[in-house]
């Protein structure tokens, strides 16, 4: 049900103009700093309801910074972020979780001393604790391996299992948009396939996804649209299929 129209033009900022209420998340000329470092230098992008959108780019291009700025861990010094039409540029991270933004951060960041179940319950921290059983069942359906280890500590899991836990944990808040930062990093090729299949499954059950990936080819296969980040700004954007054919993308990110 990825009904949003995909753009065909490949040019910075180019997009067909969808109905305004179709846009779930919009960044307009966002500038973010780490102290003196000007990490995002005017990023503009949008994510529509039901899409998978991917951000690709080299290390240090600003992919993780973009996600952190959206989820409120960082705040833009200039520009505007709106979610469901509301300005969230200054909203602290913990309130954005309630608003519907889920963020599975780079490096998984699971709570290694908490059990699997406790990690998942933390994911549902903002929700009434007696309403989460259905979501737990859903996560265990997606990741049966987590169910087998429900009372083990997070730190005892393998890298792939930790990634599953990180995604499952972010799902527990029932986000309307899920930000995934490098979900395939450090995983074996078979696990990478599994994770991408699950990302599509999560999306097809109604969650919009903004995906940051090193694995640009895979990301452009599952995503509807993509943005290419270069040194803190959007260099290129368009439908995934078109980006896959683009000369510059093929050379720089698909290794051809």
């Amino acid at each position, binding site marked *: 049900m990825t009904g949003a129209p995909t753009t065909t033009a490949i040019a910075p900022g180019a997009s067909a103009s969808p109905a305004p209420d179709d846009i779930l998340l919009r960044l307009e000329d966002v500038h973010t700093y780490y102290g003196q470092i000007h990490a995002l230098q005017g990023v503009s992008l949008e994510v529509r309801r039901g899409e998978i959108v991917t951000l690709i780019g080299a290390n240090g291009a600003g992919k993780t910074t973009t996600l952190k700025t959206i989820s409120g861990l960082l705040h833009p010094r200039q520009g505007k972020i709106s979610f469901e039409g509301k300005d969230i540029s200054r909203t602290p991270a913990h309130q954005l979780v309630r608003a519907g933004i889920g963020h599975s951060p780079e490096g998984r960041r699971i*709570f290694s001393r*908490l059990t699997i179940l406790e990690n998942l319950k933390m994911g549902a921290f903002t929700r009434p604790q007696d309403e989460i059983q259905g979501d737990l069942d859903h996560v265990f359906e997606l990741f049966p391996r987590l169910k087998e280890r429900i009372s083990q500590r997070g730190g005892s899991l393998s890298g792939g299992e930790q990634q599953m836990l990180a995604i499952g944990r972010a799902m527990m808040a029932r986000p309307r948009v899920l930000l995934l930062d490098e979900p395939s990093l450090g995983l074996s090729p078979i696990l990478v396939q599994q994770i991408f299949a699950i990302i599509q499954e999560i999306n097809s059950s109604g969650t919009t996804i903004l995906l940051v990936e090193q694995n640009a080819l895979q990301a452009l296969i599952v995503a509807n649209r993509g943005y290419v980040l270069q040194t803190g700004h959007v260099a290129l954007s368009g439908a995934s299929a078109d980006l896959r054919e683009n000369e510059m993308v093929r050379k720089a990110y698909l290794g051809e």
Partner: protein
Amino acid sequence: MTVNLPRFARPLGIGAVALIVEYLLLGTQQFANALTLGAIYALIALGYTMVYGIVELINFAHGDVFMVGSFLAMWIMTTIFGLTGPVTNLVNLVGLLAIVMLATMVGMGLIGAFIERVAYRPLRHAPRLAPLITAIGVSFILQNIIATAFGPSPVNFPQIVPADKFALMGARIAYLNLFIVIMAVVLMIALQVFIGRTRLGRAMRSTAQDREAAELMGVDINQTIAITFFIAAALAGAGGMVQGLYAGSIKFDLGFFVGLKAFTAAVLGGIGNTTGAAIGGFVIAFVEVYATVIGYTQWSEVAVFTVLILVLVFRPSGLLGQQLGERA
């Protein structure tokens, strides 16, 4: 691979062994004293360890928070309830103890959260030495406030618990000791349940491990840290009240040595680990009482701080400390 014992097995085992050894070495009478003293140290040590766990700050003002707690309890007893001597009616006594304790804990909790707000939160992103020095400054401030308000000499603490004793296995033990130990155990169990089983407890543990990730779960970090300081100070307040009852008089500088000993207990148990802090409190009290029993009273503090040095040199993570570097 390690054997998969239930998680509580190791602390329980260490605690049980420590208690049995203490009992065998001390005999009933002195064991009762060590338990009472240990209960007080444990209540304070919990605060050191909880605060360190969540903001990685050794809160050197915590011993003085304990001291302020004893003065607050004394003030509530004398000024609000007009108490000066023993309360003989058991129902009244229990009721008064409960009310004074609750009021002291809430009052100290608020003071603890206030100190965090004005003294530590502004320095949350400063180099770690800054809040440490601030903590020492807070310590001086608290001592001087109390010395100004109540004078620099020891102040009598109303002895509302009658000095009656009961016989137990050849020893005569004051009811006060019984009350202190039971109260401390109840508070510690309540704390464990809170941290281990509740939503806010999980939020605290998550924040302690990875603040940013906890934030991404929707945890309000400032609120969680404030709650941690509240609980730490409330427990110290309870400790301060029973310290007053136990010692009979209190003084503005009493927090320094007791605080250092409780800090030693927290380090011994493994800083950041609440069960460890409780066990550490009882072990430190044992060391102190044992030194007295074998005739080295004036060396008891040396013994305690020798333990601190030995732990720091040979097992800095403490009895139950977290292994470092477990993040993948």
